[in-house]
């Protein structure tokens, strides 16, 4: 388990929304640009790292009960995304690291993955 604030510090994040949830405990991490994969393989309470920056990223995060979203490679959400994320209480952050680097850093720090497709297949749900 890690605090979102610690993750933000490690990945040198910019905070776009959700300052109130900055001390949220994060139990799992997942990463994908495919929202259907997030819906299929993530767990409630996970952190999502993604390079996909559009309104459906926020809708998916809300439906899949993602606790926080970090956009990789310096991508930034627009005002509509920030407004929806604020309404749904989903913190949005951004890092300059690539998806590969960001995942590697967090994995090394000990953040548990959720998207273990082979392991969870058949018993997820």
């Amino acid at each position, binding site marked *: 388990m890690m605090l979102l604030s610690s993750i933000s510090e490690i990945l040198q994040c910019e905070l776009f929304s959700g300052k109130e949830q900055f001390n949220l405990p994060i139990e799992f991490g997942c990463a994908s*640009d*495919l*929202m*259907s*994969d*997030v*819906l*299929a393989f993530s767990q*409630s309470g996970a952190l999502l790292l993604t390079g*996909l920056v*559009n*309104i*459906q*990223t926020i*809708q*998916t995060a*809300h*439906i*899949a*009960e993602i606790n926080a979203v970090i956009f990789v490679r310096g991508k930034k959400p627009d005002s509509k995304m920030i407004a929806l994320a604020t309404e749904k209480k989903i913190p949005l952050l951004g890092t300059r690291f690539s998806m590969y680097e960001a995942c590697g850093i967090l994995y090394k720090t000990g953040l548990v993955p959720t998207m273990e497709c082979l392991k969870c297949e058949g018993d*997820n*749900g």
Partner: protein
Amino acid sequence: MDNTFLQTFKIQGGNIYNAGKASTEIKAILKQLGINAKIVRRVAIASYEAEMNVVMYAKQATLKFEVSPSQISITVEDEGPGIPDVGLAMQEGYSTATPEMREMGFGAGMGLPNIKKNSDYLKIESILGKGTKVTITLNVN
């Protein structure tokens, strides 16, 4: 909860930016009704994928959301092209999505398999050139 709850939503095809509004509302209603959190998440995911399918492929649809003491059901009936081969569409990875749909993070051939995974009962009836009816049911207990 003793009574059956019923609500109908209209879903407009084409506007990918609005997709998810019905499912968001359904999720909030189920939470309010005190349904188990794991079931709420499964219903929301199945409903959202069904909604995305309408937005991506159909002209419009009616989503009927029903909660009884024993079951939650979502029936999405669309006016659309229909599915030529339902068996093929159920295969993970099979997709007829456009580049625009893929840019939004969908259309990777996971929609129907995802709905199946998150439901206890799934029925797909489709007539080519007319539309598709998807019935999703989950047991409450």
